[in-house]
């Protein structure tokens, strides 16, 4: 009986299963000596040209919007009808719950329009005062700005 870490255990630690990979190589028969990299054999000028062409192709592909791909979501006639019916039902339900927008009818400001219109015009001093107040308000509003003192987006310290 040996104690812990004695030489008795050393033989068992050399179990062949331990060094064997859990997932076997997909193509164990294929030699991994680089024979599949055929392009390495061609002259370097050809490689450069290839690389250039590839980069052009990649750039072009990035700039192309494939319209035909957009049509890939095909819908049957009855699917269209179903969706249309679904949406109109939904709209009908929503429109009844919405506050009526239309009754934005003109309010009655006076019952004696002629009298109101014939009365004296607004004194010039009043107009001047209102203009001044409006100018001050405009100036004040235009000077409102955000004074950022700390980061708007912060990282939470997640342990």
């Amino acid at each position: 009986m040996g104690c812990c870490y004695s030489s008795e255990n050393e033989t068992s630690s050399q179990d062949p299963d331990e060094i064997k990979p859990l997932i076997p190589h997909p193509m164990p028969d294929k030699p991994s000596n680089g024979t599949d990299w055929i392009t390495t054999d061609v002259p370097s000028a050809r490689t450069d040209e290839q690389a250039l062409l590839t980069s052009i192709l990649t750039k072009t592909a990035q700039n192309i919007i494939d319209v035909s791909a957009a049509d890939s979501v095909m819908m049957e006639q009855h699917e269209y009808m179903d969706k249309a019916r679904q949406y109109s039902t939904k709209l009908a339900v929503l429109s009844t719950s919405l506050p009526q927008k239309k009754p934005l009818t003109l309010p009655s400001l006076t019952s004696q329009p002629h009298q109101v219109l014939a009365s004296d015009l607004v004194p010039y001093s009043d107009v001047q005062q209102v203009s001044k107040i409006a100018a001050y308000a405009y100036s004040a509003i235009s000077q409102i700005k955000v004074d950022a003192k700390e980061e708007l987006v912060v990282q939470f310290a997640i342990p």
Partner: protein
Amino acid sequence: MTTAALTAGLDRIPDQLGYLVISEDGVLASAGELENDEHTASVMMQMVRTASRFRLSGSPEPPFKRMSVILEDFVYAVTVSGQKVFVVKRQHNQQEPVSV
């Protein structure tokens, strides 16, 4: 209310240069410098609609009786009564307090 009844008082307004009576459907009556002035009618309609949306807190009604559009030489005085917008163009000759 007939058109004549609508406009009867407008003719007697002092310094009046012209007027418009507008309903939701369009111009009901017009005279003077505003005769058939559909453009001014639509602009005034929009302005009074916008202005009548303002409310002071606690008041359900618009806080004004008349809207004045003041320009150098004339003033458009606008009010609403019985779903009709009344616009009167009046001479504006009180530019500055006369200094004696």
